[in-house]
């Protein structure tokens, strides 16, 4: 089956303009609410309720990959592919108690970098910042390239035009509205994504019922229905640990903790994770329908859009286009806003200009939003088609931060040198496993080594950390 653009460029442009104007207008309007200080711009006033808090976690975690890679996993590896992808929701759920702990220990904190610097010192902070910089740039690039590739495949847009449009829209409303704009638009985007996905899935299975899909698969691809596929089990573990690394270390999630009301923060992570887990299973099941129908795809990550267009015509293609556009903008806005917060707070304010005023800090965050958008465009300009390998590569790095972060929050004896060695050794071993064994076991090795080093080092050389230091120094 040849993958050709199946949405007329005119209709695609109309949808882009409609939703771009909507996001920017809402972002600017919400950005005018509240005070005009740096806390308001970076953390939306620190009083977000449960609905917005849950929705922003959902929307940020539903990336272009969730709508396109999960169907590919379903198509290529079957049920385990879908379940493995869904296990990435564990990252949010397991972070829930840590989120409450962060809120208690650091009521005035701003970034994940603040925590690492205060808990483990400046050297650990440098190691952590290198890891988070590599991960964030990789994440930004995959989303930007995904935007260019997807809009080109769906509607024939030029790769660079699609990329510029998506990054430009996300940058504009983040720039003018700050975190309040990001969280507000995330609510609408998450509802839109879930409703449209449910519509596509229900209509697809009405045309090709589950018993018929099962009957075809059991005859032609029985392994896709095997729940004890060895590789599937390993991928599932890797997926869960990778997602824990992503959530535990990245400022996207820490900024949501600081922005949310204390009474809702733990519940929102649990609900957000549970709600998110249904998305890859639903989109992955579309991949199984494609397989049962005997369709073959030159680009397997296009399973979902092609199936939607094939089953539901132009309407289906338009639905997928909107889902993908919302997924990409909701993830990019979160990345831009939270990374700008990290750069402004940790590098500009804490490292370079501690005497900077509140207004200067806010201005630094705004300049960083634009700078990051431009940097992402430049790095993503040459097109790479293998994005999954970039993500697995960063998994080796971020998984090494899980135990230093978790131990640092709960265990006063957690040792700063052990944390540094844990992050470095976990990353090195994880990357070695990525190269010498298989990409999908990198996070498993990284987490295991990091845990061992962290625990042994802290038991052998225990610290006596005073939790009050996290409050007082901010």
């Amino acid at each position, binding site marked *: 089956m040849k993958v050709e653009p199946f949405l007329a460029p005119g209709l695609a442009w109309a949808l882009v303009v409609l939703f771009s104007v909507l996001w920017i207008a809402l972002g600017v309007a919400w950005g005018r*609410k*509240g005070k005009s200080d740096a806390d308001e711009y970076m953390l*939306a*006033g620190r*009083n*977000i*309720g*449960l*609905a*917005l808090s*849950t*929705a922003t976690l*959902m929307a940020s975690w539903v990336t272009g990959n969730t709508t396109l890679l999960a169907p590919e996993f379903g198509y290529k590896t079957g*049920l385990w592919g879908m379940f493995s992808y869904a296990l990435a929701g564990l990252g949010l759920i397991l972070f829930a108690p840590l989120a409450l702990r962060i809120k208690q220990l650091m009521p005035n904190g701003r970034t994940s970098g603040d925590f690492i610097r205060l808990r483990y010192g400046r050297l650990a902070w440098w190691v952590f910042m290198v890891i988070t910089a590599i991960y964030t740039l990789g994440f930004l690039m995959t989303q930007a390239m995904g935007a260019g590739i997807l809009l080109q495949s769906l509607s024939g847009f030029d790769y660079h035009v699609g990329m510029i449009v998506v990054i430009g829209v996300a940058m504009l409303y983040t720039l003018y509205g700050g975190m*309040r704009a990001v969280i507000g638009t995330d*609510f609408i985007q*998450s*509802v839109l994504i*879930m*409703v449209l*996905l*449910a519509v596509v*899935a*229900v209509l697809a*299975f009405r045309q090709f019922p*589950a*018993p018929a*899909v*099962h*009957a075809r698969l*059991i005859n032609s691809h*029985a392994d896709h*229905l*095997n*729940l*004890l*596929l*060895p590789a599937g089990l390993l991928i599932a573990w890797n997926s869960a640990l990778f997602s824990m690394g992503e959530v535990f270390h990245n400022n996207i999630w820490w900024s949501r903790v600081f922005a949310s*009301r204390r009474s809702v923060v733990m519940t929102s992570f649990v*609900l957000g994770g*549970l*709600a998110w*887990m*249904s*998305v890859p*299973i*639903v989109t992955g*099941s579309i991949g199984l329908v494609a397989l049962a129908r005997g369709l073959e795809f030159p680009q397997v990550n296009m399973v979902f859009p092609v199936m939607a267009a094939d089953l539901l015509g132009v309407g289906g293609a338009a639905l997928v286009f909107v889902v993908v556009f919302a997924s990409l903008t909701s993830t990019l806005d979160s990345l831009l806003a939270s990374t700008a917060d990290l750069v402004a707070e940790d590098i500009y304010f804490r490292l370079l200009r501690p005497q900077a005023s509140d207004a200067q800090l806010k201005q630094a965050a705004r300049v960083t939003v634009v700078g990051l958008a431009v940097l992402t465009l430049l790095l993503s300009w040459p097109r790479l088609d293998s994005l999954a390998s970039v993500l697995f590569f960063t998994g080796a790095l971020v998984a090494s931060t899980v135990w230093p972060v978790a131990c640092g929050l709960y265990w006063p004896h957690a040792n700063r040198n052990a944390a540094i060695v844990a992050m470095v050794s976990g990353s090195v071993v994880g990357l070695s496993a990525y190269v010498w064994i298989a990409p999908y076991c990198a996070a498993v090795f990284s987490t295991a080594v990091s845990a061992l080093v962290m625990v042994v080092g802290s038991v052998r050389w225990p610290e006596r950390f005073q939790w009050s230091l996290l409050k007082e120094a901010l």
Partner: protein
Amino acid sequence: MSCIPFVFLAWYVDASWFGAVIAVSQVALVLAVLMLLAIWCFEWRKKRIW
């Protein structure tokens, strides 16, 4: 589910379980939307959105 001995590492999902997985995932997605909207309405009435 039809279960082949574990040593072969195979456990094939039968049609009824497969149908249940598909149905439950779709219902969960719809419930997630309804939950979000219900919480939003509740908080909006209490002026606790932001």
